[in-house]
């Protein structure tokens, strides 16, 4: 009996691997998707191994001459304090990803929970939550961020908090709509006919149907979060100096843009690349997981 179980288990595993490999193969056929994957991997690996790959300490002033143009010693040049811009860009990637991951994790989990409640709960609760979502969405994100920053002071956590709160309604609304569409499905009715309660139905049937599209959506939201962080840091409302962030690099560089444009260019390029990377990857994933959008059929 146990051998039968074991063989069943391993077979299921190979089926799972097969599906994963299949998705990977589909992704490899999508050139933009592959480009996105490479860009994302580059940035993620850069952020993880930042401490080992930076050529200089990103906080060290006068690692070279001030505002030096790109050279073999300083590939992206140096800023007004003589700090190595390449090192700061790499270290800034880590901040950007930290913000993105923490924000999206918080927004996703809270949004998912609220969306499920709104979508499956009673009508009055749904209306109350929708009102709340609309109230939050009606604030322009930057204005809301400025207000919060003025209240509790600029820091990495403020940025995370602000962006998370403003993105919760987006996820919650999508989950709510999906849940409402799912709850009228006959298999939900069938499950209720089998005596299942709301918690069971939500956890076993609705969640797995909702989570896939939501994760893809989140991956496409990474650039948004990163650019908001950069924007706030640029305005001096985000990450506090001297911590390198792409926004602070831009901020440091733009006063000297006429004579030495490289800090601005070096701080802007990763924002562009990360946006392109996550967008391409997200779109490719969406196509793969939604067979109706698949082009090769």
């Amino acid at each position: 009996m146990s051998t039968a179980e074991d063989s069943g288990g391993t077979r299921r595993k190979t089926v799972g691997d097969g599906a994963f490999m299949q998705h990977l193969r589909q992704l490899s056929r999508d050139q933009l998707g592959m480009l996105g994957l490479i860009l994302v991997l580059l940035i993620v690996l850069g952020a993880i191994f930042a401490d080992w790959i930076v050529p200089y300490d990103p906080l060290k002033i006068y690692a070279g001459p001030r505002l030096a143009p790109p050279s073999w010693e300083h590939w992206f040049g140096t800023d007004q304090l003589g700090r190595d811009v390449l090192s700061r860009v790499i270290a800034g990637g880590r901040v950007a990803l930290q913000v993105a991951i923490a924000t999206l994790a918080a927004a996703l989990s809270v949004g998912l929970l609220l969306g499920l409640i709104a979508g499956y709960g009673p009508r009055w609760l749904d209306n109350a939550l929708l009102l709340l979502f609309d109230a939050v969405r009606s604030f322009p994100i930057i204005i809301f961020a400025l207000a919060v920053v003025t209240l509790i002071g600029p820091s990495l956590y403020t940025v995370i908090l602000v962006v998370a709160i403003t993105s919760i309604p987006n996820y919650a609304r999508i989950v709510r709509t999906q849940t409402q569409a799912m709850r009228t499905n006959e298999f939900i009715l069938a499950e209720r006919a089998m005596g299942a309660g709301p918690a069971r139905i939500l956890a076993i049937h609705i969640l797995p149907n909702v989570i896939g599209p939501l994760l893809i959506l989140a991956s496409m939201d990474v650039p948004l979060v990163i650019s908001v962080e950069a924007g706030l840091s640029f305005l001096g409302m985000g990450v506090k100096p001297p911590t390198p962030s792409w926004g602070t690099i831009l901020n440091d560089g733009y006063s000297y843009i006429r004579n030495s444009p490289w800090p601005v260019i070096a701080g802007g390029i990763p924002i562009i690349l990360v946006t392109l990377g996550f967008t391409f990857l997200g779109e490719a994933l969406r196509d793969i997981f939604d067979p109706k959008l698949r082009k090769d059929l």
Partner: protein
Amino acid sequence: MSAASDPLLDVRGLSLDFGSPRGRIHALRNVSLEVGAGRVVGIVGESGCGKSTLAYSIIGLLAANAEVVGGEIVFSGRNLIGLPDSEMRALRGREMSMIFQDPMTALNPVQTIGAQMLAIQYRDAVPTREKRRRAVEMLAKVGIPDPESRLKAYPHQFSGGMRQRICIAMALLVNPSLIIADEPTTALDATLEVQIVELLKDLQKDMGCSILFVSHHLGTVAELCDDVVVMYAGEVVERGSVRDIFHAPSHPYTEALLECDPGRIRQKTRELPTIPGDVPNLIDVPDGCIFRSRCPKAFDRCAREAPAPRRVSGGHEASCHLLDELAEAAP
């Protein structure tokens, strides 16, 4: 009457309204039916006559705007009307289960059927291995070839007929005493319909459960059921054994239904026969007999008073004034 002869399900005078913006729709009015233990009872009638509403009210899955205004549903000696949600939930998937109309949507598309079949046994405190064994056994019983490996397949990898077999397997897996089948063959083609009916028949004999079979297909009802309940516009107009209903219909509506059954038409025709007229408005239910406006045999009394159920013979009842007339004519 002794307890043993009490029916498993006894619906007595059930009346049910739906709230709507235009007023209350009196969807079921004074509906009574019995399902004995181990019996197969068919509910037939046109679309919108309340067949499915009746089925859903028994299993307690009515829409939020439905309200039971009278009568009771006695199941295994307990009145289900007004039963707390938690107790109703404990009953569903244990004592009664349901087979749905469309097998294409009745299974969760993102889970393997094995996972779903194990999940519905969550209340049984037995090892997963045992649950698995039961699922395989039940799939084999409903005629899924190679059930052991098919447990790992997703619903989209099965055809419609196979999926309905899986749904039946799931409904039977909990070993219920009553299965409610809401038009389980409507979404399938004719060949599959015969197969599914045969399967239900065999399984019912095998497991001894009762089945409440909702259908508008008279042929399958005649094939499968022991007793038949004919519904029209939210009322039971006639009930009796399959023999009674099909060989000696006593209500003009039943007669008209039988005449429209394509299986009974002997003459070549380009158009299928229909019952002329429309179902009456169920917001302002007219006085008198509900079928009056479409009945070819209606007479003045039909407009004045609503006919009460009249015994024709044995367990055969019909609600029609003509039966009184006949009784008076032949004393």
